């Protein structure tokens, strides 16, 4: 984890992790999110789904919003809202338009499959709700929720 990394927790049980936009931080992000998801009472399969959705979201930020620049900030914030586990991820990178990403052609013959779009597809498949909000000038925010006692 880079020197920027910081974990904070307030009395409302909102936990935040802030790391540099480097792929080498993805393992720390997964550990942080898995720990908080587990604390909320989720079963291990659901914890896995949530950490995967977050991993794909943060990969998109590192590779696209920051275009590989390693000195940006990725902020991951987790909390429980009613019966849901909520993860909000924000950055200060280039605005990202999720509608511009074509859906992967899952049913197509393998030779015709496109390379991109799989990360976003996984996020939507694994979480109950995924909402993007682009910043006015720069930066993005994505909020994803998953029912703590949902079935997959």
């Amino acid at each position: 984890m880079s020197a920027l990394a910081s974990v904070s927790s307030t009395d409302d049980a909102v936990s935040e992790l802030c790391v540099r936009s480097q792929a080498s931080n993805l393992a720390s992000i997964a550990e942080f999110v898995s720990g908080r998801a587990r604390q909320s009472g989720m079963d291990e399969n659901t914890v896995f789904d949530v950490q995967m959705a977050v991993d794909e979201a943060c990969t998109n930020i590192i590779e696209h919003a920051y275009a590989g620049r390693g000195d940006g900030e990725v902020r991951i914030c987790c909390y429980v809202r009613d019966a849901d586990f909520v993860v909000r991820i924000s950055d200060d990178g280039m605005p990202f338009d999720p509608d511009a990403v074509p859906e992967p052609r899952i049913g197509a013959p393998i030779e015709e499959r496109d390379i991109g779009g799989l990360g976003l597809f996984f996020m939507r498949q694994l979480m109950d709700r995924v909402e993007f909000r682009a910043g006015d000038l720069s930066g993005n925010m994505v909020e994803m929720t998953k029912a703590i006692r949902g079935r997959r």
Partner: protein
Amino acid sequence: MEIRTTHLKRCDLIEPKGRFDSSTSADLEAALRASMDAGIYRLVLDMSGVEYLSSAAIRALVMAYKECRRWNRGDVRLAAVPERIQHVLELAGIWSLIQTFDTTTLAVGSF
């Protein structure tokens, strides 16, 4: 993360262990590439030690699958796939394409 490759008589046995996110999937790609560059296109991946496979790692797997099967020269077969990894491969729509086996012995013997 750790990857071991063993050259067997009929195929290469590749044993990736740990998390394969977009940071570490390059190592998986390099291991697959090394076998193919050596002219070995019959690959068995023992998946029992894989904790996580991201979309980047799946792209590496699909790349190797396509390249190995070109001109019927080989195949990529999976062994001992953990349930969660199977779920991810199902979501990606590649579970039904790739041949899978319960054990590494069965997968190696299939070549």
